[in-house]
């Protein structure tokens, strides 16, 4: 775990990239590359594809850095969203919708202790508590979608549930989460 006191603030790095400071993008890559590669890898489960995703994400970050607004959210979240969206688009292009399951996923993803890692960052404790209050399969569906980029159909196959049920659950789970976090 990087020491949060020593780690450069992502928002500050994004600002430096936007200002065109020499070496700023490299500093941002050094500070955030592993986290962003991890996000893409969890979704794509293929190192080459995840590398493609990080490549595209870093170019997007360089092009859009000036649009980052610290008043609207944290730098780490902004970077994470860009990496996720690039990886999801790539997963879609690779025919995510037609896959029924992926043996490379394993079980570790939705193990209960994964949620405890959330609480390590204190401000995230609330989200963890709200997730914990959801029904187990609701929670699992949401994590499989967000962290692993699974489609409705893939989640349905994995949880051995009808597609319509999964869609309704996810919708309901998101609504509960919104109410709980409000």
């Amino acid at each position, binding site marked *: 775990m990087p020491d949060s006191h020593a780690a450069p603030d992502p928002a500050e790095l994004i600002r430096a990239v936007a200002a065109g400071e020499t070496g700023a993008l490299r500093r941002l*890559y050094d500070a955030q*590359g592993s986290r962003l*590669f*991890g996000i893409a890898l969890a979704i794509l489960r293929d190192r080459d594809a995840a590398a493609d995703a990080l*490549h595209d994400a870093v170019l997007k970050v360089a092009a859009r850095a000036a649009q980052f607004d610290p008043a*609207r959210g944290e730098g780490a979240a902004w970077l994470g969203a860009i990496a*996720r969206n690039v990886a999801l688009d790539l997963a*879609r292009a690779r025919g995510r919708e037609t896959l029924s399951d992926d043996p490379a996923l394993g079980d570790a993803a939705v193990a209960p202790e994964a949620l405890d890692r959330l609480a390590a960052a204190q401000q995230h404790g609330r989200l963890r508590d709200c997730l914990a209050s959801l029904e187990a399969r609701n929670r699992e569906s949401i994590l499989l979608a967000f962290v692993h980029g699974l*489609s*409705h159909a893939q989640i349905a196959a994995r949880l051995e549930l009808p597609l319509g049920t999964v869609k309704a659950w996810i919708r309901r789970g998101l609504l509960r989460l919104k109410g709980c976090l409000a």
Partner: protein
Amino acid sequence: MIPSDPEALDALAAEHVLGTLDAREAAEVARALPVNPALREAVAHWEARLAPLSDLARPEPPPAALWDRIEVSLADRAMPAPVRPIRVAPLWKAWAVGSTALAAGLAAFMLLRPAEPPRMMTVLLTSRDQPAWVVETEGGGLRLASLNPRPVESGRVQQLWALPPGATAPISLGLVPESGQVSVAPGLVRPEPGMLIEITLEPPGGSPIGRPTGPILFIGNLTPARSS
């Protein structure tokens, strides 16, 4: 179709952030985001709610060679738009001897054909860095669309200006209509990368001196649009 009903819009934003929309739906949301403030707002809220979940993905060092690849791509992008390939080589080969003059004439003709202007765009920001207008090149001119139309101070008008890189005085591109949509004809402006586009607050009829007199309300810098 992006719903206008707030609950349906919020549900769509949630599934967009969650990542469960299919390719067609996701593309539709991506297209709507720059022009739909309510959708943008809902997506931003869901991003903020769910962002901590990305910490559940285990960090992993990227491949060592990846940074070099990124640098190459960055350098490619920084270069001026490549000249469009001109297919004269096969002609030269076919007419190896003889018709040289004709071929040269043909090549010159092809070179003289105007290349399609590169697409450029920018987002004009308020003084508080809030996105307010999308500007795109269109058929050699410019097209502007307001992201968040709001009333202009009474008794004043908004005037649009362009400042080409290196120039010292901006060119007036006319007054901004209430509709929040502006088209600038190619004759008035030659969009180029680095050109500043700004909207200022002016007295009725526009600036009397041909240069901005009021405060800058919105400003942005034209950059080449990605083709992807």
